[in-house]
């Protein structure tokens, strides 16, 4: 599914539902390979200040599940795969089966679930099988070998490796723990591996693409839209996605 791919994150409803869709279409146009659509949540414990601010703006604007599905539909219509990233309570309250059904019918390809471990995921494992959706669980540098294997075994689509111990947000230093984590993962799974948390520049993306299959970028993209109004923000977003995609894709030839 992913081979030296750029995975770009934006929350749905940020800054508004329509402008969020427009920004995601711009990302698809600029070369992103997969779009991770965030479902904004009131208590995002895995997210740093940039994504928190964007989520708060989206929530203040009244974003709802229906808006998230509309965003998924718009992205999927471009042919760029769309996965939704969300905290588990949102799925549980919607109804796990109903959420999977509506995600599949909107054209979404799966879910990234940062606060769900396979042990608690019984209903989701069944629903994702029923609707043929990818389920992307996270692994971390602190995961034991046994847990890496266990978690990867429950993933479909790709495995999300968190490069650093910490929350989302751009980091100046590249991660030293990520290559080791990917190496450990390769021993227990044949699934593609996406690496996220901290990437913001083409240089970092190229480095991650040298050992991982997918480069996941979130906060740096969100910041383009936080710091500027629409035309300027979207232009900055396009430019950054082009830089990141070029750097990521350049690893395909090597």
């Amino acid at each position, binding site marked *: 599914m992913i081979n030296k791919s750029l995975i770009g994150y934006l929350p749905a409803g940020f800054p508004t539902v329509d402008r969020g869709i427009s920004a995601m279409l711009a990302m698809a146009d600029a070369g992103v390979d997969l779009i991770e659509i965030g479902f904004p949540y009131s*208590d995002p414990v895995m997210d740093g200040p940039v994504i928190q601010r964007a989520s708060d703006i989206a929530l203040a604007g009244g974003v709802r599940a229906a808006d998230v599905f509309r965003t998924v539909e718009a992205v999927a219509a471009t042919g760029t795969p769309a996965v939704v990233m969300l905290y588990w309570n949102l799925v*549980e*309250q919607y109804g796990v089966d109903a959420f999977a059904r509506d995600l599949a019918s909107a054209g979404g390809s799966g879910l990234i679930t940062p606060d769900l471990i396979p042990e608690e995921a019984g209903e989701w494992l069944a629903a994702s099988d029923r609707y043929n959706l990818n389920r992307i669980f*996270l692994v*971390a540098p602190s995961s034991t070998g046994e847990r890496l294997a266990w978690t990867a075994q429950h993933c479909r689509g790709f495995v999300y490796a968190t490069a650093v111990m*910490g929350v989302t947000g751009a980091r100046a230093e590249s991660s030293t723990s990520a290559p080791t984590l990917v190496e450990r993962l390769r021993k227990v799974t044949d699934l593609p591996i996406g690496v996220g948390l901290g990437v913001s520049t083409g240089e970092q993306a190229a480095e991650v693409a040298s050992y991982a299959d997918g480069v996941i970028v979130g906060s740096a993209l969100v910041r383009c839209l936080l710091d500027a109004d629409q035309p300027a923000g979207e232009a900055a977003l396009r430019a950054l996605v082009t830089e990141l995609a070029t750097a990521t894709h350049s690893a395909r030839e090597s």
Partner: protein
Amino acid sequence: MTAVHPFAFEAPLPDSSGHFGRYGGRFVPEALIAALDELTVAYHAAKKDPDFLAEYDRLLRDYAGRPSRLYHARRLSEQAGAEIWLKREDLNHTGAHKICNVLGQALLTRRMGKKRVIAETGAGQHGVATATAAALFGLECVIYMGEVDTERQALNVARMELLGAKVVPVTTGSRTLKDALNEAFRDWVANVDSTHYVIGTAAGPHPFPALVRDLARVIGAETREQFDGLPDAVAACVGGGSNAIGMFHAFVPDPTVRLFGFEAGGDGADTPRHAATLTGGRPGVLHGARSYLLQDAEGQTIESHSISAGLDYPGVGPEHAWLRDTGRAEYRPVTDTAAMEAFKLLCATEGIIPAIESSHAVAGALSIVPELTAALGRPPRIAVCLSGRGDKDVSTAAHWFGLLHDQ
């Protein structure tokens, strides 16, 4: 004392994966699983380690001042038409039951070889207790506190700083206890190798609900020893629910003892402004576990409201959710107004200034007297957990009762 050490007690729940029926569990980033496993191992080993138990007992006795007294509140009883006994957790060092939990967790921190502790705090009691234990054990300490709470509990901020802790005001979300928890989780994910997160209530991911319960269990275990026979009912306030689960747990097997948890009803549990999670919430996932919570139709957390910062939390520990659903414990809301009336009554009749949190338990106990009397055919005997003292709340109370004329 009891034959089995209150902390070493082996409870049937949670199960090995941390569930109380459908509640509890672990809904956290994978990055924290290793630390939660490490804590689980350390906690179960400590329960069987005589040296650990001896040191914990010594700290509870010589440092915290346990056992706390069970006091027959005669003048309050007369007014209430019942026999009311107060479990005086307010007399503990640092002024609340929270010290039992933090001393135990500080010992575990040392056992795990970690040098830094973090904690969230609402009213500041847990933050003060954590800062106290950190000072005692020579640990670095960072306390996350909602900005709103740092303002309404400014004295506790000063206390924590005097004790050497760094207090970080949390400016995200509703800027109260739930956001302090979010921020503490974020810190923990980033620093989990060096840091133990001293969760202050019987909530959060497994093993915290069980660990904090076992460390608070001494409250009810002592009460059971101290009481002449068994009470007809025990009462406690419920925010996250640590003092309540600590008070209830030793009585759960006694079918004649009714267990009452009193939640913060704010302006009324039928208004949008309350923190009565078990009354007005529904099951969901927040802060690492499945339990009842205040949430909108799509699962976004709803901000809670209470005059009491310590109860102002939209979630509740998972074992309370289990006790509620099984009917073993009963949970009812107490409004700000009723709690403040009880606050004043306890001051006037007993010379005890209670925490506003604990005032909810007193008010609740008074409210159940008629129905218990009718059911028993005599005045009931009620043991109330007076979880904390009210020095920190004097300014709030003075405003409430209009005693500050220039402000």
